[in-house]
């Protein structure tokens, strides 16, 4: 037992070390590939965190872009105006997103299924509209001049942290309580699980990491605009977790990587066949449809959402 524990910590330190070493050689990577690698990392963070809300706790949330926007704008605001250290700004962005998750979660988590989806969708839109009208962060003009702090090390350090924390959460009493809510709320309550508390926790956990992902994204692109955080961004993340298999952390992470690389790989289709129109997105959609037909539970998933909540 003692050995296993030490081994876990060692593995974590080794992971950080590898990320650090790759970071050292990252300036030599082709900038185009490098950008895709960064986006893949950010997408892993978004997908794994949404998976805790949707896949593990079974609460259908469509507000992930909203949480991401909060983290992106708030951390950029802090680094741009106050020159706060990047790590601290990221955490502040995450915490504010988590607080908004708490504020939204308390009234809306009484809703179930489709109703919760609509409420969270509305929340995402409200955040976007507020940002549109918030002059201090540029409003509709956008927010330029954000310092470029994001590098390979930061993104993949957070990836490591979100993977480890989700996994540790899943295999724990709290994780089992969260899973039991997905499986059967009534039985869960009868077994003494305080379902509201755990639903809100899952929501805050997801929102926090989404906020950090937003911060990383902002400090990579150096420019923010509210239109980046539409409902479609939430759907994009949702597609990743459904394809990867709701509830499966590894499946969701793999599908986040696949779905970041796939649209880029499909650019070659146009080159190879020398067509005038770009069939990239058509093939992309067809591949998604095919996967869902052949593996409705997702790539690595074993759990399938009930068609209708009873």
């Amino acid at each position, binding site marked *: 037992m003692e050995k296993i524990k030490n081994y876990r910590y060692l593995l974590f330190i080794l992971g950080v070390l590898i990320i650090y070493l790759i970071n050292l050689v990252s300036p030599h990577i082709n900038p185009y590939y490098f950008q895709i690698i960064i986006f893949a990392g950010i997408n892993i963070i978004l997908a794994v965190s949404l998976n805790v809300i949707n896949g593990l706790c079974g609460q259908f949330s469509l507000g992930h872009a909203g949480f991401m926007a909060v983290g992106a704008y708030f951390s950029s605001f802090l680094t741009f105006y106050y020159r706060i250290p990047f790590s601290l700004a990221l955490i502040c962005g995450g915490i504010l997103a988590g607080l908004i998750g708490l504020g939204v979660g308390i009234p809306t988590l009484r809703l179930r299924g489709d109703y919760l989806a609509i409420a969270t969708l509305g929340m995402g839109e409200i955040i976007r509209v507020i940002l549109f009208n918030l002059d201090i962060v540029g409003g509709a003009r956008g927010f330029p001049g954000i310092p470029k702090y994001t590098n390979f090390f930061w993104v993949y350090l957070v990836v490591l942290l979100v993977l480890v924390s989700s996994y*540790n959460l899943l295999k724990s*009493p709290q994780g*089992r309580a969260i899973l*039991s809510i997905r*499986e059967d709320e009534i039985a869960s309550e*009868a*077994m003494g699980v*305080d*379902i509201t508390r755990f639903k809100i926790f899952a929501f805050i956990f997801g929102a926090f990491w989404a906020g950090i992902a937003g911060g990383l994204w902002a400090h990579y692109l150096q420019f923010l605009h509210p239109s980046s955080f539409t409902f479609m961004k939430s759907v994009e993340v949702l597609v990743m977790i459904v394809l990867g298999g709701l509830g499966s952390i590894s499946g969701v992470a793999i599908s986040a990587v696949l779905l970041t690389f796939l649209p880029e790989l499909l650019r070659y289709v146009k080159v190879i066949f020398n067509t005038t129109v770009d069939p990239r997105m058509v093939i992309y959609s067809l591949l998604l449809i095919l996967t869902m037909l052949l593996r409705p539970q997702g790539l690595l998933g074993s759990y399938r959402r009930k068609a209708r909540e009873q």
Partner: protein
Amino acid sequence: MSLLKLEDVTVAFGGLLAVSNFDLTVDDKELLGLIGPNGAGKTTVFNVITGFHIPVKGRITFTNKDITGKSPSYIAKLGISRTFQNIRLFSNLTVLDNVMIAAQLHFNIPYLHTFLRTPLFYKIEEAIEKKALNALELVGLKEVKDEIAKNLPYGDQRKLEIARAIATEPRLILLDEPAAGMNPKETEDLMKMIKFLRDELDLTIILIEHDMKVVMNICERVVVLNYGEIIAEGTPDEIKTKPEVLEAYLGSAAVG
């Protein structure tokens, strides 16, 4: 000593009185049967005790604490556990996980220990697992602990529900038709198990059951409900001969 007391409890769904002016006192370590025709309000009684329905009138006390209108999780923590008529397992989880969710009720691990995987975390997790395995052993499902719950045969699913209910370490356990869908052999085992729970684990048990063989064999006292009201009460032998009971079950022509 009375463990559970319902005084003048009334549950209404709109204009329908599912349970009306219901009085019931359950003694410590009693094995009480609750019977009645379909729709008599038996499950509603369970739901109101466990906090899933809030009574419009009346008072429920458990170990001298007022639990009227309290949340189901609070009531579970006080020591009332239950099974469900239409099995409600955590279907996609393993048998062991199903029981561990119940077994962790009285343990508390701070989130920090969970995320950092401290020695304390492993210690508590082991204790929870041990408790869950004990409960599984009691119902005879230890061998299938790694199966996914929904893949178990029907009879085993019922047993798993009982294991889950025991694992919360209750003082009072409410069994809602535990023998439904079981074959005679399984029913026989179930009766032994229920007796064991009462005699060896000192649990108080309230049992809803349609299988009269089970009720008549193991219950010490039987309460008969019809249209949300108690129509008879007594030992199994007394109940069998009461005209009100026969009427409720078979119709008035049978009595005359």
